[in-house]
């Protein structure tokens, strides 16, 4: 019995590993945040995405702090209170009511504090689209998106429709765009990460999502609710451009 314990103690790996793993994880996390990839939720290009990323940081930093605290406390306790004498029985402590109250109330207060920006943000981003928002009707279908522009009509009065299969859908930059989401089959989820979080496209239950692109560019998105065989291929690209270029694009599309 004693020999086995001695053998284990000679394994310094056991002490260092958790710390190494933790450090590696943190390094990964930090390096992950500032890579410029097409759907990076931290590389925000619009007001909505930016506010959402900010709110995420509000919870991420305290969470990381608590994580480091708990994990290092566990490692320290395993080192400090490791059995040294197999016959030693430590004092039998059954608890401490003050401590219990402290670690019930303190987290509750902290967490409810977090709740304030959350609710504020829900109402902020959850408002109806404004009157002068540019309207696009989005239809989700297995496995593509149709973008209908009611403001652009041809000679017959039919609106311009662009399919995600044919090419990117364009939007005006610096202007609120209201996407009216409709599904003709199953539930999809409309998502352009750099502009903002997703909203589900539910049959019989239409939703509207407003987004603003702060700078011109091409933004990648894709269906985020499993919708069947080619769910992974239900992608889309949105190009944000100044009003004049945007209208030129629309004219060109109508001409085709």
């Amino acid at each position, binding site marked *: 019995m004693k020999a086995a314990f001695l053998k284990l103690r000679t394994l310094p790996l056991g002490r260092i590993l958790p710390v190494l793993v933790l450090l590696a994880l943190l390094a990964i996390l930090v390096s992950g945040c500032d890579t410029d990839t097409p*759907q990076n939720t931290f590389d925000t290009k619009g007001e909505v995405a930016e506010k959402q*990323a900010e709110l995420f940081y509000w919870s991420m930093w305290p969470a990381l702090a608590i994580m480091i605290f708990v994990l290092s406390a566990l490692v320290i*306790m395993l080192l400090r*209170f490791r059995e040294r004498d197999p016959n030693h029985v430590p004092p039998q402590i059954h608890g401490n009511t003050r*401590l219990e109250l402290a670690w019930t109330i303190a987290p509750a207060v902290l967490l409810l504090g977090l709740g304030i920006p*959350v609710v504020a*943000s829900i109402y902020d981003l959850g408002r109806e689209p404004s009157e002068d928002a540019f309207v696009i009707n989005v239809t989700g279908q297995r496995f593509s998106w149709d973008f209908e522009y009611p403001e652009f009509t041809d000679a017959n009065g039919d609106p311009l429709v662009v399919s995600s299969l044919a090419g990117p859908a364009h939007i005006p930059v610096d202007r609120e765009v209201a996407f009216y989401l409709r599904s003709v089959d199953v539930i999809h989820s409309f998502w352009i990460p750099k502009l903002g979080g997703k909203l589900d496209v539910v049959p019989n*239950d239409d939703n509207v999502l407003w987004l603003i692109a702060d700078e011109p560019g091409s933004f990648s998105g894709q269906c985020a609710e499993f919708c069947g065989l080619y769910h992974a291929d239900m992608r889309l690209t949105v190009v944000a451009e100044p009003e004049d270029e945007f209208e030129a694009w629309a004219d060109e599309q109508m001409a085709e």
Partner: protein
Amino acid sequence: MSSIAVPRRSPLAQALKGARHAAENRNSILGWLGTVDHKRIGILYGISSFIFFLAGGIEALLLRTQLARPDGNVLDPDQFNRLFTMHGTTMVFLVVMPMSSAFFNLLVPLMIGARDVAFPRLNAFSYWTFLAGAIFLNASFFTGDIFSGVLGAPDGGWFGYAPLNLRQYTPGHGMDFWMLGIQMLGIASLAGGFNFIVTILNMRAPGMTLFRMPVFVWMTLVTSFLIIFAMPVIAVALFELSFDRLFGANFFNAAAGGNPLLWQHMFWLFGHPEVYILILPAFGIISEILPTFARKPLFGYPFVVFSGIAIGFMSWGVWVHHMYTTGLGTIANSAFGISTILIAVPTGVKVFNWMGTLWGGSIRVRAPLMFAVGTVAMFTIGGLSGVTHSMVTSDYQQQDTYYVVAHFHYVLFGGAIFGLFGGIYYWFPKFTGRYLNETMGHVHFWLMFIGFNLTFFPMHISGLLGMPRRIYTYSGDMGWDMWNLISTIGAFTIAASVALFIVNFMISVRRGKEAGADPWDGRTLEWTIPSPPPEYNFAEIPTVHSLDDFWHQKYREDETGRVVPVLAGGAVETETEHHEEGGHGIHMPSPSFMPLIASLGFPFVATGLMYDYALVPVGFALILIGFYGWAMEPATEEE
């Protein structure tokens, strides 16, 4: 109703009686098929769920291989979708739930000082119905043309969202197998839930008041209550789906005005309590392991118990956090955002109390402890990422991404599976009389710990980089390839650790170091009886005087407050002596095949509903025969 005499004995009844006598030989196949002994049912649960763990793991490895590189072509999209559906369904319903049941069965009667559960035959019925449902569900694989790579398994996700779950979008029988299979598993869980509540409330040894019960028993009780209230809800959702798919009803048919969100509400009203059904048993297990190996009582026992109960209640009020992006509106999202934030409080209380248990202890770093501490650490990470999910509007970005996949694997693998493995290492000596090899246990832990973090930590990143769940492939320009490659390497590391565990198990069960009745210097009643326990558990039903009663038989505090062994405290020896003469007079319930017969009816009904209605009455007849036979046969066959 032992008084009900069945005067005429048909040949069938005679044959059954003969089989029952044959089953008295515990090592025969009939002995296992007819067993009503909670310990053997527990072993059956454990072995079956471990086999399904391997199946679900192989599914995961296939998925990870496909995703290792961009534009992978190991699997086609159809195979991928069916495999991830089965992976999720298997791990939830066929692994964590039944493996927890294995522990309930093995331990609850021993921990409360009972000779068996309240309804031994209902217990057997639970197990056989679970097994029937599990095999039925996996049989779906073979209904396609499996040798040319066409799988028949369900393809609608483990969550089976409407209207994708309707026949028009998921044709074939895959989703039929899914809905009918889970229905069977639900019946099994319900039967188990009822049984354990009655057992815990009613079968406690004298002096075993509720607040002297081990925390594991408390967590079993809370879990069982969650089961009996959550399972009916999913049963109704599945019945509605069954009527839609099989008989053209309109519950989720948008064309007839149905609302697909009805499914989500019901699924998650079940699904969130289900999350705690999966994790609370593991919490119970580590609440037993930590005190034993720290050689201190559980810190803040009443707080750990009450926070478990609080979690049970609160789990009913958070289901909409699975639905933040469905457009339910600001009020619903705010209310459920706050409730979700608050459920972190009782969970945090548990973590702090576990840390308080370790503090000031004399910690023996053995395999069970390593898994228990691993559970606390990994669950903490999962819980904290859960808090980041409760930030509703930022969750609009994370919903249905790999960030969520990372989160719940930290909770359900890092939490539940690590905890369950800890339980296996801890109680293996009790039920086999031998230790699992300690060195292999350490290597297993570190391999699994590293593999686990390699697999799932990068998923936080790939999720935040915008990678949605359930996609069968991705292109190389998304910046996800490195993280996915790391995840895949990690997954195979986990597989290696599980392989090592199997080797350890196989060797140790035959040649492991022999363990006595009380190998870990335990605190609870199961360590007072021999390893493995006799069929009747306790030669004499113990009388309990305090929490951690067995500890107090072995140790006392001297005048200076130091803890010293009670010299005469050879509780184990005296107990063993009792067994030499005891035992014989104790009548245990006879084996019974009726639960097995009744359980067999369910797959007949389900198969009949899909392929040929003629099988439906056959199935119902089996169920009826099983139940009538069950009601009529005496529980204990007269000698």
